[in-house]
């Protein structure tokens, strides 16, 4: 009961936050000197009448606050509006979201299932050659900018001919059977997943290692050891459970990056996900599309934090007492 009350309180708190976010983003986009009609204006064969019609269609002839209110009204109703080219925003997003989710979920699954154990291992084997080796590897992973690594991978794909140059499916994907389809997608996903995996693995592994080292140094672990508990019990029953809190918060952030976290890599690999769509939308000041994606981003972030907090309440009695 208490937890339900807590959740509803948190949800209510996010409403003013979302309003503020939407206002700031709307006005910043609209006040930027980007004119969605610039291309048309420079086309000698487009008449003034056509330009005026376009302006009306996009609602650019109304004052800014009215434009915002119109947008907000339809947003609340669940209508995301149309893009500058007249396509439904919801349809455009729906085309891309599954692709982005496919990529990010694979990456998050891999990084967590590899990163956390590696972090624990590195902490347990602190200052051994194994730990040092992992430190070097992860430092490299953290140091390489994602777009650069992605470009290197693309060049590798071209030179070796082992991997397709970006994209998600081959052009004859429709004629494949299920197994071929699966391998086709896996083949295309390999490089972008490698890039994202290497980069986020580094951070996660370091984080886990640091947390666990912190806890391993504390008095109650020393006491547990002095009591004669087996090392396994000390680490997995006592230390790990206490070291996991920051990881849960991190998981909340991972949730929010489900849709937006891979944008750069997506762009380099020409991956048909949200990143490319939003980037082009921002460049063209396609307001409805940009707003929809920003709002989704904001909602995902709030939601991710909420989930993390709830998980913390469930796992940590200290926080439960306070909440």
């Amino acid at each position: 009961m208490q937890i339900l009350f807590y959740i509803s309180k948190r949800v209510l708190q996010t409403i003013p936050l979302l309003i503020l976010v939407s206002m700031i983003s709307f006005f910043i986009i609209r006040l930027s000197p980007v004119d969605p009609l610039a291309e048309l204006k420079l086309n000698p064969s487009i008449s003034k009448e056509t330009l005026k019609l376009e302006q009306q269609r996009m609602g650019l002839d109304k004052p800014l606050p009215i434009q915002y209110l119109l947008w907000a009204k339809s947003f609340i109703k669940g209508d995301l509006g149309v893009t500058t080219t007249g396509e439904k925003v919801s349809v455009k997003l729906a085309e891309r979201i599954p692709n982005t989710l496919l990529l990010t979920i694979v990456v998050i699954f891999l990084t967590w299932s590899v990163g956390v154990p590696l972090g624990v291992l590195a902490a347990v084997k602190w200052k051994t050659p194994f730990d040092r080796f992992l430190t070097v590897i992860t430092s490299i992973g953290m140091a390489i900018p994602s777009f650069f690594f992605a470009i290197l991978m693309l060049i590798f794909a071209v030179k070796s001919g082992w991997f397709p140059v970006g994209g998600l499916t081959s052009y004859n994907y429709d004629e494949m059977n299920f197994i071929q389809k699966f391998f086709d997608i896996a083949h295309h996903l390999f490089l972008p997943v490698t890039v994202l995996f290497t980069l986020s693995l580094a951070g996660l592994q370091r984080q886990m290692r640091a947390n666990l080292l912190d806890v391993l140094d504390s008095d109650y672990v020393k006491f547990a050891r002095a009591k004669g508990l087996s090392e396994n019990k000390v680490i997995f029953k006592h230390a790990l459970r206490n070291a996991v809190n920051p990881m849960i918060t991190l998981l909340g952030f991972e949730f929010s990056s489900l849709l937006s976290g891979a944008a750069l890599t997506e762009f380099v690999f020409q991956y048909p996900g949200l990143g490319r769509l939003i980037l082009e939308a921002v460049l063209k000041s396609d307001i409805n599309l940009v707003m929809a994606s920003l709002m989704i981003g904001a909602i995902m972030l709030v939601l991710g934090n909420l989930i993390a907090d709830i998980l913390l309440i469930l796992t940590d009695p200290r926080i439960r007492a306070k909440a």
Partner: protein
Amino acid sequence: MKQKIYIIFIIIFLIFFLKACIKRDVPEEEKIKQNVVRSETNFTFPSEQKNVTLNGVDYLQSQASIGKFGGELIESTIGEGPKTFNPFTSKDATSSSMSGLMFDSLFTTSPKDGQIVPKLAKSYKTKDGKTYIVNLRHGIKWSDGKPITADDVVFTWNEIILAGLGNTSTRDAVMIDGKLPKVEKIDDYTVKFSIIKPFSPFLRLMASQIAPKHIFEPITKQGAKAFDMFYSTNTPPEKFVTSGAFRLKEYKAAQRVVFERNPNYYIINTENKQLPYLNKLVYLIVGDLNNEILKFEGHEIDVISLRGSNVAPYKLKEANSDYKIYNLGPDTGTMFLAINLNTRKNSDGEYYVNPEKQFWFRDKNFRTAIDYALDRKNMVQNIANGLAKPLFTAESLNSIFLNKNIKGHERNLLKSKELLQKSGFRLNSNKNLYDKFGERVEFDLYTNAGNTEREAIGVMVKQDLEDLGMRVNYKPIEFNTLVNKMTTTFDWDMIIMGLTGSPLEPHDGKNVWHSDGSLHLFNQRTEISKIDNRLPFEKKLDEIFDSAALKTNFSERKKLYDEYQKIIYDEKPIIYLYSPIRIVALRKKFKNIYPSQLSGITYNIEEIYEDNN
């Protein structure tokens, strides 16, 4: 000891590493490029496609050599891909070209000489240039089996184009003195178009694509909104009823568009077999140029437009590769330097352009001096990598209306200085230029940031003009801001821009050259100040553009358009710089390739076939 070994290792590593960085000098690079630019692919176009009647069906017979059926061609399109497959609502080039594959137009342009040749229609006749009788083909069908008749043509014109649905640019263009053309059905296969007076661009506009009435009619009745959404990219492929050589098979957002051959197409080969040869035509949607190049290298696409520094390496590898390089000649795009001759005031009573600057910019000697100070050869060499030609005319170099008597000139600083002196400009001891009122000659030069080519031109123009003692404040700014300056606020001095024109129809440039045009850059008027104090040469341009459109005889029109190009060249409100050359690489396995300056390389997609031997 150990340390020494380490150091030696590192040094050896560095030596190898740096060795790899040394670029071999390729002295031939320039020569290769020049060869590509000069090379004209030697071939003769096959004779024009002929109308042939077989079993009561009016086919169009391709005269190209007979090929093999099957195979697929993979092209690419840069950007976000098509926005719609409806040819009547498309506003961007990608959407238009893709809907163009599916919906044939009544007539098309001959790749050889730009003349109008039949496509979906069989022929046309006109006596006075005011009424056109168009004959349609008997027995040809939409992809759902319904015949293509005069009803479809009349419907398309009256209910879509003239009704102002979708993209209204055709409607705007066929409006003559505020009157729209009349389109009537004479019989099932004959349509009459009538306009109030002869208007030569009309013929090309009349060639518009045709929609199937039985599919589009329910939609047009629902109004503009429904029409804008119709045949969008989300429409299932089997819903399309089309007339073109290919029909949609699959569209995957941000990935690809796949077309398959239309088995009932009305173009046949000389063995009377129905074309196209290719089974599939695929467009991969790629985000940028670099990715396109990688995809070509990775053999994922078959055609690529080569730019700048890529040409020489591709040419070097051509002999041992599976592609061939074609020179398509000068592009329709032009690069120019526009000078703001505006002397009007804005709504706050302030001049758009400072009065002292107005005095310079309105001075023909000043503008001519600038023209003579520009080193076009240097720009072509260093910016366009030699893949361009200096340009002096307002019409692009591949235009059928190009005034070939305008030969242009070399850079001539002495002449520039003379001209400036004549107008009372003086250099002081520091070689700074002052006008006769003692004002320092200093102005802003804008271009759009992000376009590396234009940015580089700006730097060169600045340097060239500084040789005359002018101070040029060069400011690359964001594209949209620049367009706003050009079309709304008019507060600029000089701008480097490019516009695409039509090599076939100079009248398309009316919005730029007519004094009340919406893109009359160099002396833009607002809605209120419609046609006020026209410059003498503006008056002449207005007359030329008004009268040339009414002439239907090519040589009469040519004369007038020659004159307009001469006026621009003499008066120099816009100074043309160069025209890029298009170089394309295409895999050798494709045959029946006849590159054309006017139409590109895969315009005859139904005749192209794949030959793997």
